[in-house]
């Protein structure tokens, strides 16, 4: 099996679009990926053929919807090599998944406990833990990074101790693209008895994630950054932990028996999934991971690495362009600044040329302050991008530089 980028590209209808007469060059994949036809077809099929509520109907459509919904759970469990399918809990996305973890473990925090996050954090994996600490009296510790965007492992080692209850860190930095040594950190944290949460929002789409091999307790991600629909995400957590958690939202689906004055809770995964879920989203995400699993994952990863290396090399051609985040182990993201030009201005001018990037604080304001930047311009690559896309980015950047000079 080999990786054929043109064959992959052809499956994404939106990539045929033009913006003001120019072909779309979509380089905002860290914000959200585009959807292959098979995912779009799956959503259409669900709504045109078997839209129904799950787990309760006494009819054919309900059976089909329930099967599709639960098969997606099995497919996602396989995709991340979870030991048990009921360890996959559907959420609305990474943010809700982190909040769900906080509801589960945060209530066990007490004064004197310490939580470690990193300077790389997306707001979702920072603010949630700030709140949990405020409510419990635990202390939030921030692991520093080097200017390259790599974690300072010595600093991490110094922060880690017997009081550490949770270590929460990104698999891949959304702003800089740094791939963190999550396995090594997990081993160290587990040795001190801490829980480990990996924010996989940016990691999940870039290669094999094996939650058992990582050894972490929780791995969370969003469907929409994995070629699936928006509004659906995953909390994977160890069964023995999830089973002991207090309930999250209460209502239908999550109960065992209900009286007027009291209720008992159902079993995993239902006890953490109250109410009618995002059925179409879940089935669409199932289609996305099945589709992705059919690709040559090694070839896919090599292709993405080639794009990043090529873009990083070309960045040297433009005087005043500086790549932000120069860790040796990076994936998918090239953040940069263009001397004398505000990132927002660069983004506007690129957009007029059909090139879609992200500009601004990248939902990581403390990290931008740490790096002394008002924000960055960020080009992020996915499996359907080509070297030609990178070339168009640089043509567009040259024009931006000229106009803003």
């Amino acid at each position: 099996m080999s990786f054929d980028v043109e064959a992959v590209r052809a499956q994404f209808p939106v990539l045929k679009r033009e913006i003001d007469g120019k072909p779309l060059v979509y380089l905002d994949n860290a914000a959200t990926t585009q959807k292959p036809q098979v995912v779009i077809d799956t959503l259409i099929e669900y709504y045109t053929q078997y839209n129904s509520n799950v787990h309760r109907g006494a009819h054919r459509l309900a059976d089909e919807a329930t099967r599709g919904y639960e098969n997606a759970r099995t497919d996602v469990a396989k995709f991340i090599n979870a030991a048990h399918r009921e360890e996959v809990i559907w959420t609305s996305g990474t943010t809700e998944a982190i909040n769900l973890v906080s509801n589960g473990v945060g209530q066990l925090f007490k004064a004197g406990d310490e939580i470690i996050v990193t300077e790389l954090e997306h707001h979702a994996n920072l603010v949630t833990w700030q709140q949990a600490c405020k409510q419990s009296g635990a202390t939030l510790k921030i692991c520093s990074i080097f200017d390259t965007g790599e974690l300072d492992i010595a600093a991490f080692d110094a922060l880690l101790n017997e009081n550490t209850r949770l270590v929460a860190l990104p698999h891949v930095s959304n702003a800089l693209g740094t791939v963190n040594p999550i396995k090594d950190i997990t081993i160290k944290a587990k040795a001190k008895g801490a829980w480990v949460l990996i924010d996989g929002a940016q990691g999940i789409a870039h290669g094999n994630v094996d939650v058992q091999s990582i050894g972490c307790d929780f791995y969370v991600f969003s469907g929409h950054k994995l070629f699936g629909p928006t509004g659906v995400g995953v909390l994977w957590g160890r069964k023995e932990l999830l089973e002991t958690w207090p309930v999250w939202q209460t209502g239908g689906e999550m109960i065992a028996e209900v009286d007027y004055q009291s209720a008992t809770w159902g079993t995993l995964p239902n006890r953490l999934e109250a109410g009618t879920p995002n059925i179409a989203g879940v089935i669409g995400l199932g289609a996305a991971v099945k589709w992705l699993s059919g690709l040559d994952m090694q070839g896919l990863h090599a292709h993405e690495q080639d794009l990043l290396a090529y873009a990083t090399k070309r960045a040297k051609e433009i005087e005043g362009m500086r790549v932000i985040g120069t860790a040796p182990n990076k994936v998918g993201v090239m953040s940069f600044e263009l001397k004398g030009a505000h990132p927002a201005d660069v983004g506007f001018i690129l957009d007029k040329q059909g090139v879609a990037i992200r500009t601004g604080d990248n939902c990581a304001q403390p990290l931008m302050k740490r790096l002394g930047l008002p924000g960055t311009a960020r080009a992020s690559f996915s499996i359907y991008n080509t070297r030609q896309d990178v070339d168009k980015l640089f043509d567009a950047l040259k024009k931006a530089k000229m106009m803003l000079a």
Partner: protein
Amino acid sequence: MQLPSSEEIVDDLAFFDDWEQRYQYIIDLGKQIPGLSEEAKTPDKIVKGCQSSVWLDYKTEDGKFLFEVDSDAVIVQGLLVLVLSAYNNRTAKEILDFDIDAYFTELDLERHITPTRGNGLRAIVGKIRQLASAV
């Protein structure tokens, strides 16, 4: 400084036939206005967007609003000149009567004024209208 009137801007922008000239014009407008001094950029005047920040200062004279604006992004600064061309040196009633959405649509720049926290432009419009409503 003497700002161009909104009618002049509509005429000028209509004259250009490609986006490069239009954006260069907006950039040049942005570069022309002096902006606020660093001391004047106090936290109460900032409207933060996640892409760029905007500052707004104002005073009233003879019932008319006089605004000063600044942004860290030059295109946003230029777009602020367009906003001020509609609002500066106007009475509260004139400000409230002006249809800014129609104006930006006429300029074919409506994506910059859509409700988003992105560039702070919409928030500035909201703030100006709020000041006018309070009169």
